[in-house]
């Protein structure tokens, strides 16, 4: 298990290296990263990795994460597993759409 620290709010949780950053958080019932489709399509769980290394798993919508962003450690938390202790910043947000 690796510690995942949210830089801005100092929240922290433990995430396995076989689960995604988002799945590890959801499993614990935590809510520090917005949760949407959990399949790389909707973009609400967009994060920037500040410290540590992750492994990418699965495809991310290019509408939400460009290749340029990805090369700078920006990705969707539902599409990356932690390889070490991680510090990240939440970029994605729930844009209130309907109500």
């Amino acid at each position, binding site marked *: 298990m690796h510690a995942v620290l949210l830089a801005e709010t100092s929240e922290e949780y433990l995430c396995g290296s076989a689960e995604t950053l988002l799945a590890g958080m959801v499993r614990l019932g935590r809510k520090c990263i917005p*949760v*949407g*489709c*959990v*399949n*790389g*399509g*909707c973009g*609400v769980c967009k994060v920037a990795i500040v410290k540590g290394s992750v492994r990418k798993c*699965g*495809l991310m*919508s*290019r*509408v*939400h994460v460009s290749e340029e962003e990805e090369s700078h450690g920006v990705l969707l938390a539902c599409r990356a597993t932690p390889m070490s202790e991680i510090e990240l910043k939440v970029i994605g947000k*729930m*844009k*209130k*759409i*309907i*109500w």
Partner: protein
Amino acid sequence: MGVMRIGHISIKVMDMAEALKHYQNVIGMKVTHTDAGGNVYLKCWDEWDKYSVILTPSNQAGFNHVAYKVTDDFALVRLAQKVRDYGIEVEELPAGTLPDCGRMVKFNMPSGHEMRLFAEKDILGTDVGSTNPDPWPDDMRGAGAHWLDHCLLVCEMDPERGVNTLVDNKHFFIKALNFFETEQVVVGPNGSIQIACFLSHSSKPHDIAFVAGPTSGLHHLSFFLDSWHDILKAADVMAKNRTRIDVAPTRHGITRGETIYFFDPSGNRNETFAGLGYQAQRDKPLITWTEDQVGRAIFYHTGSLVESFTTVYT
């Protein structure tokens, strides 16, 4: 004579192999065609036309177009003219533009969503046939969805700029395409802002629906199931397949539909929907849901909104 039903929806998927697993093993559709461009065409067991869902390979998720089937070529000609008369440009697509589909007319809804109408598509028949049919086929998979039922589109709204393409779409669908409104959600002073609209062209509570959002997009495509028990079984199928469920089995106030919301492997939201609620008729008084009861309109039991449901779409 005019529009009959949703004929098909075309959506983008990022990983075709994963998408096919989902639409076959979870929804229970069958692949009926794959074209040279890698687009895959599927149908449900209770549908007779060759396909109702088109999956197109892409680097993103989301909506391509939705097509409604009309009664005959005469209706197609007449509706194309009505769309033009409404002031919307129409493009004629010759037969074969989509495989096994007759000629189509193509235009954009006021919300920007691409829509097509067609009168003919190759008929494969339902999986139980049309002669002394059994009630269900033996090789049903997953949720065993009967048919693609409707879609819900997010339509751009910006009250500050006076933009509400949901209302523009409503007027267009009623005036040009002869749909009728069954239910609405209104908010703001004296309920002056409409944020959801349910339209029918049949006896179902909705054949298409619109909600307002900051940008236009796809909220969900919905598949029909028979009963509440089928909804429970569909949720079991999703759990077995580790499908991401957005909203677990519940009931809507709007349409009285029994429902589950979930995401395909690219993040496009799907619904399995049971219970036709009531018989929609053109002279039935319009049902209105007010801002103070909007929670129950959407999720009748809890009366509270689910954040991802009202904020996430492709």
